[in-house]
């Protein structure tokens, strides 16, 4: 079934359609939530929240704007970031966060082994500074100001690097990005 068909089935309260979506994308949703939150139990809460929300409001998914996977990961990332952006949540999270070098997922051996060759190459072609800035922002759940602080770079420089890196990735992966 297409993404649109699955979303339509969920709209008609087809639980098997929701389960199919979960089986297909739930793992990736968990991955992004866990990376941002650095907490397995909290990540499970985000996964549950994302799919329950899809069940209750499937009309939020607009197939003309992208794939169901992209939609779910966008929602999951936002939810996870909302959690860590709470001032009272931030201190405990920082205390237990891994050091910056392990936060930079796109350089990790595990990431290199598990991604497709096309994505791997596109990321490898980025400058180190672009890759680190994107990784800290996306997988670290940091604002660009926090990324700048983490890297010891001017905020404007980090903004430019994130934008140029994302533009390069979009140019390479654009037609096949799912």
């Amino acid at each position: 079934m297409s993404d649109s068909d699955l979303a339509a089935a969920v709209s008609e309260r087809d639980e098997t359609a929701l389960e199919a979506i979960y089986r297909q994308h739930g793992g990736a949703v968990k991955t992004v939530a866990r990376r941002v939150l650095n907490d397995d139990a909290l990540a499970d809460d985000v996964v549950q929240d994302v799919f329950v929300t899809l069940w209750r409001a499937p009309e939020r998914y607009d197939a003309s704007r992208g794939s169901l996977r992209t939609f779910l990961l966008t929602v999951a990332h936002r939810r996870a970031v909302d959690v860590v952006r709470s001032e009272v949540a931030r201190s405990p999270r920082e205390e237990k966060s891994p050091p910056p070098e392990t936060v930079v997922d796109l350089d990790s051996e595990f990431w290199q082994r598990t991604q497709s060759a096309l994505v791997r190459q596109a990321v490898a072609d980025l400058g180190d500074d672009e890759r680190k800035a994107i990784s800290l922002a996306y997988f670290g759940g940091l604002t660009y100001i926090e990324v700048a602080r983490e890297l010891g770079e001017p905020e404007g420089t980090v903004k430019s690097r994130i934008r140029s890196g994302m533009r390069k990735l979009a140019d390479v992966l654009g037609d096949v990005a799912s």
Partner: protein
Amino acid sequence: MNDHRWAESVALYALDALEGQELAEFEEHLETCEACPAELDDYRAVASRLVRDETASNETWERIQATIRADSPDVTAQPGPPTSRWGWVAVAAALALLLGGLLGWQLATTGDPGSENIVTAAENAATSQDSIVADFLVEDVAVAQVVLTADGKGYVIPTDDLTGLDADRTYQLWVINTAEDVISAGVLGAQPEPATFTWTGDVAGFALTREVAGGVVSSAGDVVSVITDL
């Protein structure tokens, strides 16, 4: 290619790397811009490619399944969008905040600033035209006031009419955003004192509930008051 002055903001927004005033300004711009939404979709699709897949756990699916099966028929029978945001919020309150939140944290109530300073800070913040100021009401009696500044500093000031709870219970504050998500902003404890919190996202309302001590991920439904008329 989006070359106008928002070009960098699109990429940052796609990665959720904006917050505060910059986030608010870009979201306002996004509502009218013709170029940015398409570029945003590109970047979000790219970001989704960076995430590796793993096997989705059966345990989490069982939790999801249990939750959706527990939904009220009144909710599940209405798959379309809510006709009124405020109507939905009212339903959400009545249905014990079914969407749930993500986590409760102890709101800052001690240290710097102390309770007295928190009250003063809240009073000062409330004078700003850009601040949200609203009361949690129980039978038309204010039990707490919530103040949220434009830059995301929040204050909860309980009144004497907010009764204390047993030690194994806590009051918990929830933010309802414009996407109708209900997200925990923190716990207030059993004997609430003036407290601060931070919320930099959009806001459509607030809810105050009674929960087990320590706070909960999803409300058990003991709703004290809901604010929807911001």
